[in-house]
């Protein structure tokens, strides 16, 4: 097993374990911090999978911005104190386990899936592109050329989200 494979599997297992801890901790704050661990582990996986820029974005946007928003609201509402917890009872846990296993059963075909050879790029194409245009450039060039309109619409979406969040959270307008 190569060094890369060892690192990959260590962080893959850690991501799954941290996700499991995230959904089973009674304290919402602990859940949030375990979710941050999962997001960091996923950032490592992204980096290994030839997407270092997405890995950086994952740390900055997800682990940085979005999770801080979550922690902020948890602390604002003061629900982070230890208490009875919010896990459902035995029946609820059984339903969750069965339906979760059902989803996993339905997704079992996913790991065996491989795109047809005809549409696959030759191995190393993305790597060569990154070496040629840079890690950021290889993502930025199509983003601002092919996907320019969706990108602009995203800014509209974010504007709507900002206005919506202010309207919803404000006591009196």
């Amino acid at each position, binding site marked *: 097993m190569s060094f890369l*494979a060892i690192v*990959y*599997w260590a962080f*893959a297992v850690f*991501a*799954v374990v941290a*996700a499991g801890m*995230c*959904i089973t901790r009674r304290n*919402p704050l602990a859940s949030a911090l375990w*979710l941050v661990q*999962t*997001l960091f582990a*996923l950032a490592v*996986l*992204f980096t290994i*999978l*030839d*997407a270092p820029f*997405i890995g950086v*974005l994952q740390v900055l946007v*997800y682990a940085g911005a*979005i999770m801080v*928003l979550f922690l902020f*609201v*948890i602390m604002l*509402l003061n*629900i982070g104190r230890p208490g009875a917890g*919010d*896990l*459902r009872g035995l029946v*609820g*846990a059984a339903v*969750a386990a069965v*339906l979760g*296993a059902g*989803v*996993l059963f339905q*997704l079992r075909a*996913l*790991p065996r899936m*491989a*795109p047809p050879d005809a549409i*696959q*790029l030759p*191995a190393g*194409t993305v790597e060569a*592109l990154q070496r040629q245009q840079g890690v950021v450039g290889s*993502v930025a060039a*199509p*983003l601002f050329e092919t996907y320019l309109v969706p990108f602009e619409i995203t800014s509209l*979406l974010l504007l709507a*989200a*900002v206005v*919506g*969040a*202010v309207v*919803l*959270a404000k*006591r009196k307008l």
Partner: protein
Amino acid sequence: MFLGPSLAVSAVLFAIGTAGVLLRRNAIVIFMCVELMLNAVNLTFVAFAQRLGVSGQIFVFFVMAVAAAEAAVGLAVILAVYRHKETVDLQHINLLKG
């Protein structure tokens, strides 16, 4: 490289997220489980992007933007509900139950 394993990890994370949504009653924790599911899908996109072109990575970028917008609006909704009900426990938020 690591296509199969990544898809397997992604499937497991998605299933854990689903189980979390069903297991918890706290609206904020359920929200975090949804983020977990979004991340599982992101992993699929990145894994496929290795051999199908960088468009997959750009899609992850859009998913992150939508997740950020969703988190802002969703947490604002939770704040508004908390102000009204003094709780974020979904068992007590049953106005539509008749």
